[in-house]
C-alpha cells in the first residue's frame, strides 16, 4: 500500500493550479484537496496519476459567503468548518444536517466540501445535498469559469462533468427562506461509514401546504438520485402519514439499487422508503417552526 511515483506541485493561486492542470505535458493529473478519499486510493494504487496538484494553499477557495440570497461555499472549505458555520446553518440547513454524517470528526477536519462533491461517491452526503438543492457547481478551467447544474454534474460512479483541466471552485445554493425545513438521515453499518442509504429532504410550506419538496437519495444508484415522483406527490398537499406513505412508495418504485455485502437491493429499497417518510416528516415539522 505505497503510492506509485508521481510529480507533485502545490500552487498558491488558482491560476497557477489551472496552469499546472492544463500544461500540455501534464499527463494524468489529479487534484488533492482534503485527501480523505484520494490518498487511500493512491495507496491502493487504484489512482496512479502522473501529477498531483495540491490546492491546499489556495486560500481564495476557502471562504463561505452569502450575498443576495445565494450561499457560496468555496471548494476548499473544510467540512468541519461548514458544520460550525452559522451562515451555513441558516442558509443551507440541509447541508448542516448532512455534514455530521460524514465519517468522523478527524475526517471532517481535513475533508473539503468541494473534494467530496468532485469525488462523486454515490453513497456520500454532499453530492446528495447538491442534487437535492439543485446546487450550482462552479468550475474554472483554462477557458474561464462556468457553472454546472447539479443535475448535470454527477454523471456516474465517481464521475462528474468536470473536465480534466478544470477545478471545482465553489458550490452555490439559493438560501433557504422562511417556511423552509430540512432533514438528513442515513443508515450505515457503523457510525461514520458510507451510507447504505441516505436521504436528504427539504420542504417549503405555504400555510400547511407543501409549496416545494426536494428529496434526494444516496447509495441507491451510480449517482445521487432525485425522488421526483415523490416530490410531485407531495406538492400542494398537507403532510400526513398517508401522503408520506404515498410519496415513499412513489420514490421507491423508481429505484433499482444493486446489492453488496453491506445491504441487499431489497434492503436499500425498503430503507429508502423508511428514510423518506422520516426525513420529509421532520423537514415539514421544521418548516412549520420556521414560518
Amino acid at each position, binding site marked *: 500500500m505505497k503510492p506509485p511515483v508521481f510529480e507533485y506541485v502545490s500552487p498558491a493561486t488558482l491560476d497557477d493550479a489551472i496552469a499546472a492542470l492544463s500544461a500540455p505535458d501534464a499527463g494524468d493529473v489529479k487534484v488533492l484537496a482534503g485527501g480523505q478519499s484520494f490518498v487511500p486510493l493512491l495507496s491502493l494504487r487504484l489512482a496512479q496519476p502522473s501529477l498531483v496538484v495540491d490546492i491546499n494553499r489556495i486560500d481564495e477557495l476557502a471562504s463561505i459567503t452569502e450575498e443576495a440570497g445565494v450561499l457560496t461555499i468555496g471548494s476548499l472549505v473544510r467540512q468541519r468548518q461548514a458544520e460550525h458555520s452559522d451562515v451555513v446553518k441558516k442558509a443551507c440547513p440541509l447541508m448542516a444536517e448532512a455534514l455530521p454524517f460524514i465519517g468522523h470528526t478527524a475526517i471532517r477536519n481535513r475533508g473539503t466540501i468541494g473534494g467530496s462533491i468532485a469525488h462523486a461517491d454515490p453513497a456520500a452526503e454532499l453530492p446528495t445535498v447538491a442534487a437535492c438543492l439543485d446546487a450550482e457547481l462552479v468550475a474554472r478551467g483554462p477557458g474561464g469559469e462556468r457553472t454546472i447544474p447539479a443535475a448535470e454534474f454527477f454523471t456516474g460512479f465517481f464521475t462528474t462533468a468536470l473536465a480534466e483541466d478544470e477545478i471545482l471552485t465553489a458550490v452555490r445554493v439559493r438560501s433557504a427562506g422562511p417556511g423552509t425545513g430540512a432533514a438528513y438521515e442515513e443508515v450505515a453499518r457503523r*457510525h461514520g*461509514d458510507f451510507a447504505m442509504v441516505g436521504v436528504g429532504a427539504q420542504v417549503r410550506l405555504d400555510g400547511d401546504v407543501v409549496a416545494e419538496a426536494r428529496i434526494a437519495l444516496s447509495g441507491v444508484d451510480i449517482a445521487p438520485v432525485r425522488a421526483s415522483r415523490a416530490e410531485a406527490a407531495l406538492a400542494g398537499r398537507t403532510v400526513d402519514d398517508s401522503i408520506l406513505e404515498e410519496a415513499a412508495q412513489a420514490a421507491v418504485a423508481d429505484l433499482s439499487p444493486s446489492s453488496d455485502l453491506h*445491504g441487499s*437491493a*431489497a434492503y436499500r429499497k425498503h430503507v429508502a422508503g423508511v428514510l423518506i417518510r422520516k426525513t420529509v416528516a421532520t423537514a415539514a415539522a421544521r418548516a412549520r417552526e420556521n414560518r
Partner: protein
Amino acid sequence: MAGGSAISGLVGASVHRKEDRTILTGTGRYIDDVQERGMLHCHFLRSTVAHGRIVSIDASAAREVEGVVRVFTGADMSAITEDLSFAQPIPGLHSPSYPAIAHDVVRFVGEPVAMVVAESRYIAEDAAGLIEIDIDPLEPVMSTTAGLADGAPEIFGDVVPGNVVHTDEQLFGDIEAAFSQADHIVEQSLDQHRWACNPMETRGGVATYETGSGQLTYEASTQTTHTLRFLLAGWIRQPIHQFRVTANNIGGGFGLKFSAYREDVAVCAAAKAIGGSVKWVEDRNEHLVAAGAAREEQLTLTAAVKADGTLLGLRVTMKLDAGAYPINPPSTVYAGLVRTTLPGPYKLPAYHFQHHIVATNKASYISLRGPWAVETLVRERLMDKIAETCGISPVEVRNRNLITLDDQPTKMITNVTLENVTAAETFQKLVEMVDLDEIKREQEDARREGRLLGFGVGTFIEPAPGTQEFWAAVGFPFGSEPCRIRIEIDGKVTAFTPQTPHGQSHETTLSQLIADELGVGFDDIRIVYGDTDATPFSMLGTGGSRAATMASGAVVYGSRELRKRVLEIASHILEASVEDLQIADGVVSVKGAPGASVPMAQIAMGCWLAPEQMPPGTNTEMEFVANYDGEGGGFSQASHACWIEVDQDTGKIAIKRFLVVEDCGKMINPAVVEGQVIGGIAMGVGGMLLEHSAYSDDGQYLTATFMDYLMPSAPELPEIEIEHLEFESDKVVGSRGVGEGGTVLAPAALLNAIDDALAQVGRPRVTETPITPTRMLELLGVIEKE
C-alpha cells in the same frame, strides 16, 4: 498506585501497567520501527486467481528497476528453502506441504507468487507491478459443500483425497439408549461465517544475516519466538544454534501469530541469500486478503431430552472450512477442542461427535481468540431451544442441567475431570442480578409501542489453561512453563519468561507476583521476553490463556526458591532462624527487631562477587529456573446476559446492556482482567454483527480494506458491566486465564437475545451469521431474501 517501594499485597490490586509508558508515548519497538544497517524492504506479489496453474512468470522487467536488489519467483525461492510442512503423526490427517512462494498451482487469492526485495517498499511495489504472470484458471472450491460434492475438483490432488483434510467420529456413552428414552428431539444448526483476528499490528519481521559469523536474527511480530525458530530453521536451512528469534512490542495477535508463515520463510531466506537485512511489514490490504481467517464452521446438533428439559444425549456434526494451506496447529486440534469442550458445564450422559475438515480455495483457517468458540455458541443456543420446546425458561433449562460445585469432582462425557468449576455459580449470581419478570414486562410494554427488545443469556467453561486430561482429549500437549529469575548484583530482579505478551500485561502481572513473593519493589523488577537467546524454551509462548496460571506459577515457584536462598544466607548473617525473618522493601530483617537487618543487595553482591566468603553450606546461586506443572490446571468460567433492541425499520441491533459474571479465581490485577473481558466481548460482538472475511463465488476476496471489513468501534459497543467471583482453590496458584472467554461467550448471549426478539414476533431463529441489518430484516419478514 504502584511505586518503587515494596509493599506486599500488590497481587489483587489494579496496579498501573508497566507497559503503558512505552506504548502510550509511542516509544515502543514494533516491526515497522526496526531499522537495521543497510536494511532492504520487500513486497510480495500475490495471486489474483483463486485456483489456477501458473503457466509462466516473467520478472525480467522488475529486475531492471533501479533500486531493486533481488526478485524471487517461486522457483528461485524453492531453490533455497524447503517446503513448509505441518504434518504430524495424526491418523487420517492429510496435511499438504507447500512452497514459500507458489511455483506450480495457486490455491487462493492472495497467495504469494513472487517477492521483490528493494531499497524501499515503494520501489518493491513499483517493480512488482512489472512482473508478468500467466495463470491458467481452474475451478475453485469455495465452500465445504462444494468441496465435498461428488466430482469436486481436488485442490491438492490425491494428497487430500476428496478435499477432506481430516474426518473422524467419536462416541461417548450409550447414544442409542439416550435417543430411545427421549421425550423430545431438539435440532439446532448454525452456519457461521469467516471472520478474522485483525491485530492492530499486522504480521511482519526483519531478518538480518551476518555473513561473517553465519548468524541469522529474525525480529518478528510473533506470539511464540521458540516455535517460530524451530519451525523456520529447517525450512530455511539455518543451523538452529546460529538462529535467534526476537520479539519486542507486539501489536496484538489473537491467535494469528502462533504459526510460522510462508512470508516468514521467504523473508529469512532472502536475508540469507542477499547477505543482509530485509524487512517485511504486511500492509492492511495484504493482511485482510492473505493472513487467514477463522470461525467458518457449520454445525448441526440433535439433542435427546426429557420432558422436563433434562439432557439425555447429543449428536453433533461439524464441517470446518480449512481454507487451502494448513498452518500451526493442525486443524485436528480445532476439531478436538470443539468436540471436547462442547458439553461444557452441563451433565450429558451420551454424546456423538463427527467432523469433516474440508480444504477450499481460501486463505488459511487460523486460530482466533478461543478457537473452539463455536461449541459454546451452538450449545447455548441449543439450551434455549430446548427450553422453548419443553415450555420452560432459558434460566430453568440451565439450572436443571448445570454441574454445580456439589457435583464435583465429576467427569465430562468427554473424559475430562471437572473440579472447582463454578459456571453454575456464576449463572446463579447473574440470575440474581437481573429481574426476569421486569424484563418480560419491559418487552411487552415495548411491543405495545411498536418496539422490539430481546434478552439472552449464556454460560460456559474456558480451558484457561485447561487440564492434562483436557489437552490429551484434544490431542495437543500441555507443557509445563519455565521461568528464569535472577536477583541482580544490586538486589533488583530480572525474570526471563517464554511468554510473548502482546496486550496481556505480563510485565505488570508477573512483576506484581514477584514483588509480593520476594519483597522487592515493583519498579525494581524487569520482565524479559521475546528472545530465544535469553528466555527458556516453551513451545507455546503466549496463547491459550495459559499465562495467568502457568507463567504466574513459574515466577511464584522461582521467587520462592530464591527467597529461600536469600533467607538462609541472611539467617547466618543475622543469627536468626529463617522462620523469624521477613523481606520488605528489599531488606531482610528479623520480625519484631527491625534494627537487625541486611539489605538483599548486600547478600546478592556477596553471592555474585565473593560466593566463597558467604556462609558455608548455603546456596549462593542467585539465578534459578523454575518449572511449573500447573498443579493439574483448571478452568475459568463466566455467564453473560445481553439486552438488545431491534430497529424493525432498519434491522439495526443496538446492545442496550451487557452483564458479565466471571470467575477466573484469584485476580492478579482486576483492571487487566476487566480489560481482557471487555476486549473479548467487543471482538465477539463485532464478529456476530460486523466482521466478515468474505469471498465471491468465484473466489475473489471482497473485504480487502477497512471500508468493507468492518471492525467494531466504540459507538457500536455498550458499557460492559462486570461482576467478579473469585473461587478460592487450595492450589498455590489459584489464578485462571480470561483472554478468550469474552469472545467465546458473547456471541451466544447476543444471538440468544436476537432469537428472543424474533420469537416475540413469531419469527424463526437465526441459522446463519453475520447478523447484518439486511439479514435481520429478512428474518423479521420485512424484506425478501435474495
